[in-house]
């Protein structure tokens, strides 16, 4: 038997939409994928490599990661603003985010990244 206080908490929790979580998950997938794809691009193109050289001692890694992090946080802020009070198709969002994350893991592995 639930106490009145527990019932109130459960009711409030059930009413919490999934939009905010979905925004965080999808943007994290995008951020991870950006790290991998920007690293690959910097490896292929001399001009992108020099563009990514934000901090000389660290080299292009500094630009690749800084750009990916800024875009990730930007996408997260926009999605959070748009989805925070909504229920979104979470199955699709999670599938896309986990696919992007798995691709990031693969693409950062140099023998795979070099195939493109």
């Amino acid at each position, binding site marked *: 038997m639930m106490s009145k206080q527990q019932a109130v908490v459960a009711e409030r*929790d*059930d009413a*919490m939409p*999934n939009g*905010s*979580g*979905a925004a*965080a*998950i999808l*943007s*994290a997938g995008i*951020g*991870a994928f950006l*790290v*991998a794809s920007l*690293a690959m691009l910097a490896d292929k193109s001399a001009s992108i490599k020099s563009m990514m050289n934000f*901090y000389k*001692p*660290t*080299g292009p*890694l*500094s630009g*690749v*990661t800084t750009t*990916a*992090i800024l875009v*990730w946080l930007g996408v997260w802020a926009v999605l959070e603003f748009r989805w925070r009070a909504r229920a979104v198709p*979470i*199955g699709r969002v*999670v599938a896309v*985010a*986990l696919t992007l*994350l*798995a691709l*990031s*893991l693969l693409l*950062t*592995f*140099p*023998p795979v990244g070099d195939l493109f």
Partner: protein
Amino acid sequence: MEITARGLWTMIHGMGFGALYLLACSGAIVELWRRYSPATHLPVSGEDETFLRIYLAVMTLLAWITVLTGAYVIYPWYRAAAPPGTVNLSGYPQRLLMSSPSTIGWHSIGMEWKEHVAWLVPISITMATVVFIKYGRNLRNHPRLRTAVVGFTLVSFLAAGIAGFFGAMLNKHAPVEGGRTIHLMRGE
């Protein structure tokens, strides 16, 4: 018994922050998987929830400190260019590894993978922490959110493991050394 300043920083980065993250990761995965499953009947108290929130926040902090010290403190020492004509490459780990066909792979595969894959760790765990802070025990009502949180935490564990493994192997074949020498203890 001595250690150089660069050696000490490398140890703090890898055996301190990185290893601590890996240890903490397994605990977080078990807790998120076991306690927050929609099928479980284990009670979650407010104290349990607060504990995991703090635990994940500390892991997030560790992940960021690890990649930032790696990229901005140690990596510049690792990739330092040797002046032309340098014969002893021990102060230039990347050049040392690239100077032999038997060690070049540790740089071209090991370091190239490590330096990028490591960044998936703070991104993943920051997301997992924020989602847990927001939803807490309510994750039981959102099984797919929980799946994503556990999935990203697992990948962060794998990525940290890859980075840690290559970090250790790189440091074994071409240690990052130099700077001030610190005397730890006098031997007999």
